[in-house]
């Protein structure tokens, strides 16, 4: 790795090292810096028993840097609060100018929503990341909860937004932006006041499913086409999150996977999603929460370099999206914002299992289904395998603490109860 580090040392901020392997870079219009089209999301790093293996994180970061990735996105709350430190520890081993690091003001909790709490969180980020300045700093997940009211509570009433703008002026924040989910009035409000806040970038959820159908998935969401259009119009670079919907666009139903493979047998299913996001010209970087080395390799093959989608490809993906909408999956992206559930329920694991069963056609609707016995066995045994008994949906008491944290605005208790009722009927062979 020493050679790689040396290679980065010679590079200057924003200019990719010569050794990088064909990565596509986008230019930040404000700073002129070159940002790799593939960004590393530090939210899905592999954990075991609530801990990181720092060696693994280092390995991932080194590999990504060596292959031209230079954007790393973390948050104080990710991975049970350990992501920033692990990210910092891995990046610290490289020259500061060889990477851009992004983190957020994740002041969701009542305690850190105060000015003091928020400033402490901000300062802690420097400490954890081990940096003197932060390249990209975000107001985390605006539009969530009660919308504008909550936004004001988190950033306006406590003076935090003013504070952060001062920090930007002081150079400790090089780019200030926000990540957005949920209430569109907050998004519109913030963009309407662009001349006041001067957003350097905005992070949005964009993928070929949400491009047009976000509202169909959940009526409180907004089509990515609109979000992107609004940013593009104002010349604000877009950072893309959930390009793969937490893996749901990599694990599509068999019939859909077949069509994608027929069109391009050499590309992975996931690569379609990355190329879709990357093909939008005003996208600065596409974040991917990579849990395994293979994810990094596959994503590199999609974006380093990017082979943009043709008009035909885009039409094809819209067709695929329409097909995907026929499946009644739960729009969980496994971001774990809902976790930990105070009653110990593994919410994302339950949804993941349910979605997998839908994709694998293992959710029998009736005992007259041809594959009923096989599907029932796969569903029930798979359930016990994916979710320990004490963490299954039947232990959800519906307290609702999870729902307000969900960026996808899934009505979690309702969905859990629905799945539980279905499982109960499946167990009792009542369907």
């Amino acid at each position, binding site marked *: 790795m020493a050679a790689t580090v040396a290679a980065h040392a010679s590079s200057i901020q924003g200019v990719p090292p010569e050794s990088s392997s064909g990565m596509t870079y986008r230019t930040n219009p404000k700073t002129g810096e070159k940002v790799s089209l593939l960004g590393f999301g530090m939210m899905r790093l592999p954990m075991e028993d609530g801990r990181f293996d720092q060696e693994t994180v280092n390995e991932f970061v080194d590999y990504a840097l060596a292959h031209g990735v230079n954007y790393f996105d973390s948050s104080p*709350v990710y*991975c*049970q609060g350990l992501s920033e430190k692990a990210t910092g520890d891995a990046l610290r081993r490289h020259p500061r100018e060889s990477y851009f690091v992004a983190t957020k003001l994740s002041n969701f909790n009542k305690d850190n929503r105060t000015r003091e709490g928020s400033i402490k969180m901000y300062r802690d980020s420097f400490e954890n990341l081990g940096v003197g300045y932060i390249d990209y700093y975000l107001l985390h997940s605006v539009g969530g909860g009660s919308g504008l009211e909550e936004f004001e509570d988190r950033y306006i009433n406590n003076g935090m937004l003013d504070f952060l703008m001062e920090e930007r002026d002081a150079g400790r924040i090089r780019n200030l932006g926000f990540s957005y989910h949920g209430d569109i009035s907050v998004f519109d409000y913030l963009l309407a006041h662009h001349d006041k806040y001067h957003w350097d970038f905005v992070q949005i959820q964009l993928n070929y499913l949400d491009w047009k159908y976000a509202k169909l998935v959940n009526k409180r969401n907004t089509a990515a086409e609109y979000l992107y259009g609004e940013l593009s119009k104002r010349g604000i670079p877009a950072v893309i999150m959930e390009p793969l919907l937490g893996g749901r666009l990599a694990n599509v139903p068999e019939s859909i996977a077949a069509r994608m493979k027929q069109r391009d047998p050499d590309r992975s299913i996931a690569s379609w999603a990355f190329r879709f996001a990357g093909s939008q010209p005003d996208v600065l970087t596409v974040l991917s929460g990579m849990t395994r080395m293979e994810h990094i390799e596959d994503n590199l093959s999609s974006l380093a370099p990017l082979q943009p989608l043709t008009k035909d490809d885009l039409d094809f993906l819209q067709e695929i999206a329409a097909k995907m909408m026929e499946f009644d999956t739960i729009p969980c992206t496994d971001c774990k914002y809902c976790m930990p*559930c105070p009653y110990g329920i593994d919410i994302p694991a339950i949804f993941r299992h349910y979605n997998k069963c839908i994709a694998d056609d293992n959710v029998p609707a009736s005992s007259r289904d041809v594959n009923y016995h096989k599907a029932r066995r796969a569903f029930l045994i798979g359930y016990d395998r994916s979710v320990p008994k004490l963490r299954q949906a039947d232990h959800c*008491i*519906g307290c609702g603490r999870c729902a307000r944290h969900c960026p996808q605005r899934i009505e979690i208790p309702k969905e859990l109860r629905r799945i539980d009722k279905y499982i109960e009927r499946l*167990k009792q*062979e009542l369907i």
Partner: protein
Amino acid sequence: MLRKIRISLAVLSILAVTLLFLDFTGTVHAYLGWMAKIQFLPALLALNVGVIAALVVLTLIFGRVYCSVICPLGILQDGIAWLGRRGKKNRLKYGWSPEKKWLRYTMLGVMAVAIIAGIGSLVALLAPYSAYGRIVQSLFAPVYGWGNNALAYLAERKESYAFYRTDVWLKGLSTLIVAAVTLIVLAILAWRNGRTYCNTICPVGTVLSFFSRFAMFRPVIDKEKCKNCKLCEHRCKAACINIDGHKIDYSRCVDCFDCLDNCKFDALKYRFAWGKEIPEQVRNDTQGVRNDAQEAGAESKGTDAGRRAFLVGTALAVGSVALKAQKDKADGAMAVIGDQDDDLEEKKVDGGLAPIKEKKRPARKTPLVPPGAGSLKKFSRHCTACQLCVSVCPNGVLRPSTGLLTLMQPESSYERGYCRPECTKCSEVCPSGAIRKITREEKTAIQIGRAVWVKENCLAARGRRCDNCAQHCPAGAIQMIEMDLDGRTRKVPLVDENKCIGCGACENLCPARPYSGIYVEGYTIHNDI
């Protein structure tokens, strides 16, 4: 030839019974369940006249073949004895010993009294098939379970659903101890002297001996051909051949046919011999004592020592069990969760799993027994504590009890799961009629207990929004009602005892830990709705 047939059948038979106890999925019961139902004592307790009559007739015709090919404990001892006989100096280790009538009949008497008086634990201790079931369930089933889990682990990696994980847990410490002590004592006895247990303690052996004395077919010594080499006597694991008098004690002969194959002079034949030599046989017993007093002295000393070990071991086990039971009671005293009062802290970071406290068993005034049992009394009188139901319960509900009188007999508890509406497995496998066979529909109408609300533990009673018990009650017996508690209106569960069947869904799924805010109290007599 006969010996080979006997061994083949015995091996098949013990494999089948063992599989019954190991197979937690319950699939082999459809094919082999009858193997448990033809066991003598369970059939007797189930008042299965057909099976008992067939076994009596079988014994009257062929002798105690039951003990050699049907009884798994007998076959187990044969296996151990075979191991103990290996090596040159051990080949001829056995010898004639007189019948210990006083011990046999005392044990039979104890058994009879235990059955009549309903002392289930004593019946369970003496019943041979149940002793075997206990050994397999307590000592071998965990190994089988772990093996299965290893396969399930591999299957999971290959996305196959052929195997699934099963929980391996200590179902009852006292039963485990009893099983282990039984196995050790039996192994010592069988290793040294073959069928000692079967011919001194086993009440089933004693009962069958009444009939085998008169068996139509039996091994007979041809005095003309016999050269008094005593090869047969020294290889008789039932110690029932007395070559000095050319007599065989048919009350103890288990028809293993070892003697037939061993005789070099063709002097032993298994043949029709009805009504012959019986009076002589009886006389022979007393004669034997005199004749072989010296020779048998050493032997019987050994046997006595072994027997003493058995009794002392049992006494120890019972003692330890009693202590355990008392301790359990103390532990089970209803407690209130301390940390429940603090309001849940708002989460600060994303991800991770909240730790879950294990549930503790509430102190039930009346034990719970599965639907189909009828009543506690009827159940404890019929159950031989073979653990078949325990091994097949997929919900972790059944486990051997620790009560002194019902020791090792199963009882229900809901810390690990609850008695699910679609499951009637225990009632399907029970060989002794202790759990009558019921259908799913019948199950919905059998009340084995009633849910009791524990205000102190209930989360809803202190203002948390929770109605999980009402949501999951399969009988629809729980509704949430408003109640004034400590000056505030709370929505809390109200149990309709007319509808509640005591399945424990509410108790098991209650979020209050370690003690649930609602638990099931048993009925002494089950109730049909």
